[in-house]
């Protein structure tokens, strides 16, 4: 997986070295057995909770709407819970979609500016963008709550998406800047000399070259927005506007004393499914995102 990620990474000047084949020359079956047991057990520990959540969401359970027999009763509960699953899915999709859009627009244009243009204040702005990493979430959300109230964006999905975008900016801008830096300058300079505007050079020449970076940034922005819990907890007060994680957490707290674990598990499955599918499809982009995170250190 890591090795497949490496050739596609444009932004990694680092020396790459494939791990060698097993070093132990005595690797007989008998010697390998403890290794198989250990690794098999580990894989099971990590995958088991996910499988259990999937099974439990359709399994019979006391205190859920799936008391006996297997079926989709828990999902039916979730469909009708308060504003309903479709509404929460819509909220989550809108917030994630807007966050991805805002993040991509800001980081692609910003990365282009930081990589290709010299302008006064460039380094200050870049450092300020990275400084967002240093400031804890909790510190920013309290004044943001007050500020969004003041400009009438409180309790709106747009306001929430803007806030989530800001927390994506350090990684996204850094990633897009190194992606642009990795593209030879001759490529867009030639287009400019041929009379292209700088925007057209970006759109037609550079954008295709930095596509892997765009996918990585988009994937991370989507996962972060889809999964975020604290920002909506503080910024959204209207229960019909909350995204899915908050809705499922509320569902658990709502029923006094008795927790509907079945519906909770169904909610977990609905939340986790897109993440797991995206992860498996875009594994190498996911791994590359982590690695450029490592490079900045």
């Amino acid at each position, binding site marked *: 997986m890591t090795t497949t990620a490496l050739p596609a990474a444009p932004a990694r000047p680092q020396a790459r070295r494939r791990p060698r084949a097993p070093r132990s020359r005595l690797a007989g079956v008998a010697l390998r057995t403890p290794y198989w047991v250990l690794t098999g057990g580990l894989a099971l520990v990590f995958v088991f909770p996910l499988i259990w959540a999937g099974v439990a969401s359709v399994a019979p359970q006391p205190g859920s709407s799936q008391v006996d027999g297997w079926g989709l009763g828990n999902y039916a509960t979730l469909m009708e819970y308060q504003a309903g699953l479709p509404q929460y899915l819509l909220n989550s999709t809108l917030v994630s979609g807007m966050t991805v859009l805002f993040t991509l627009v800001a980081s692609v244009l910003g990365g282009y500016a930081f990589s290709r243009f010299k302008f006064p204040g460039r380094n200050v702005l870049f450092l300020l963008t990275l400084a967002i990493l240093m400031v804890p979430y909790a*510190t920013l959300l309290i004044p943001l709550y007050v500020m969004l109230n003041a400009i009438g964006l409180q309790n709106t999905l747009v306001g929430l998406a803007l806030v989530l975008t800001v927390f994506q900016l350090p990684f996204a801008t850094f990633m897009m800047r190194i992606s642009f830096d990795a593209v030879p300058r001759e490529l867009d300079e030639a287009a400019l000399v041929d009379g292209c505007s700088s925007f057209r050079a970006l759109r037609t020449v550079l954008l295709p070259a930095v596509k892997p970076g765009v996918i990585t940034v988009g994937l991370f922005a989507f996962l972060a927005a889809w999964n975020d819990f604290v920002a909506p907890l503080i910024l959204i007060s209207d229960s019909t506007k909350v995204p899915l994680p908050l809705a499922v957490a509320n569902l658990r707290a709502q029923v006094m004393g008795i927790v509907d674990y079945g519906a909770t598990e169904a909610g977990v499955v609905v939340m986790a499914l897109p993440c797991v599918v995206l992860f498996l499809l875009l594994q190498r982009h996911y791994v590359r995102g982590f690695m450029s995170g490592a490079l900045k250190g």
Partner: protein
Amino acid sequence: MPAKTSARPPTRPAVVAVARRRALHGWGYAAPTALLVVGLFVLPVLLVGQMSLSDWPLLSGNQGLNAPQNYVDALTHRFFWDSVVFTLKYTVIATVLLIGLGLGLALLVQESSRWSAVLRTSILVPSALGLASASLLFYALYSPQVGPLSPLLQRLGLADGPVSFLGSPDSALWSTVFLVVWRFAGFYMLLLMVGLQGIPHEVIEAARMDGANRWQSFAHVTLPLLRPSLALCTVLCVTGSLLAFDQFYILTKGGPDNSTLTVVQLIYNVAFQGQNDLGIAAALSIVVLVVLVVVNVAQMRAMRAGQED
């Protein structure tokens, strides 16, 4: 490029004009980033500073300056020091476990066999989940009513009755730590794998040639060379753990009896639960911010000092 040479040589004023236009374009492209950074980062940081010095109830807004009352109230809050101690304890446990386990897993799955790839993927999948989703998943997993763990422990003879994982202060802490390890081990494994792959193989082979055994070459060659990666992981893990919120909010809500109250949970409670005082919450946030900056700077210093040896 032929096109470029034909356009030359430009006169000096033309060069200046082009540079100025390029700078203007640069600002144009950087504008969305600048707007977001100034509007939703710089201004809020300034505002939280002002809030920390003002009387600022949740519902009635700014009631004027009252410095340094919020800081006094924050530092003498009856749960403040308990939450600090608990957060530090959690941070130490989580950091030691995650980095130790991450390194062990990275060494284990380093080989590029198909089976290693399967194992790597299984360990990584949980890190695609949101922390809130993972916490809700474990909330059910730990439940004595529907969770499989309680019956399992009973069947193995390790427990007499239904096990309440979140019921006592100690078990609530360790149950949360287990969830966090499950969710983040893959992340640290990956970062350390990248570090391991950056170590030139020749260095380790040379140590082997000189007669070092597996353990010696690991302790004296691999580990020192891995130091930057380990330092990065430590910074990330310490920072993240000091700010722990989602997992405790969902699993324990700070309970039982405020025994798992983290500092961020305290900030949230002061601001939005019961006390409804944004001024004190802002003062607490500033304290956390200062501590984090100090911790980060100290860790980076230590990291640099270590590299110079």
